[in-house]
């Protein structure tokens, strides 16, 4: 729905010729939507595997080796999902900026990014030393729990944007 009012920057985005092209292309919009889904599928799939390991499941699998595989897949997924997300956002920017599910989702993404930054700063430097047959350090378990909860909630909020 075109919001008749909203912040000037959101209205300007929404009325841009780019946003118009996004809305009027028969295939462009569903293609970008699909790309958004592929992106967060890669992010969530990969990060949940790593989170599960850090929470203590999959004992015997090396956290360091798993991180080396899962983190790049999750990172690419995040970049793809976020890029496609920006393109979807501009089509109805003024409506999105006052949608509670959208606002909660963006806040959760910030929490998720902060969690990633803290994990990489404080925990990743020692991941090679964690024993593979005992639970990872407490901090890693907390970060993994936050990560799983946040990224699952981000997807749920994303889906709810269309319903609230």
């Amino acid at each position, binding site marked *: *729905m075109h919001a008749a009012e909203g912040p000037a920057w959101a209205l300007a985005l929404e009325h841009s010729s780019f946003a118009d092209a996004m*809305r009027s*292309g*028969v*295939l*462009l*919009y*569903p293609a970008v939507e699909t790309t958004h889904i592929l992106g967060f599928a890669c992010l969530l799939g990969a990060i949940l595997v790593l989170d599960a390991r850090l929470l203590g499941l999959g004992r015997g699998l090396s956290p360091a080796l798993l991180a080396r595989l899962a983190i790049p897949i999750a990172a690419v997924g995040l970049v793809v999902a976020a890029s496609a997300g920006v393109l979807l956002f501009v089509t109805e920017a003024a409506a999105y900026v006052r949608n509670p599910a959208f606002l909660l989702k963006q806040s959760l993404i910030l929490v998720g990014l902060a969690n990633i930054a803290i994990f990489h700063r404080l925990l990743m430097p020692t991941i090679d030393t964690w024993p593979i047959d005992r639970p990872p350090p407490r901090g890693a378990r907390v970060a993994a729990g936050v990560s799983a909860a946040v990224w699952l909630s981000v997807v749920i909020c994303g889906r709810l944007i269309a319903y609230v």
Partner: protein
Amino acid sequence: MDYRNPHVMIDLKDGAKTWNIALAPPFRMQSRGLPDGSLTTGKAVTVVGYPHKTEVNELRAERITVDGKTVELR
């Protein structure tokens, strides 16, 4: 009349009332025989749909009849 993603939107006059109606995505409209240009301002159409519970003028269409042809939108 706004032929756009994620849903084609039309304003439909019904007596004194003007409904703001959401149809289907352009890709589906096109594949079911209602391409851009087939719905024009001033055309008489019949719409079956569900009115919004609180927004009194908004309606989600289940099907639309244009030029004697009924197109399912779900």
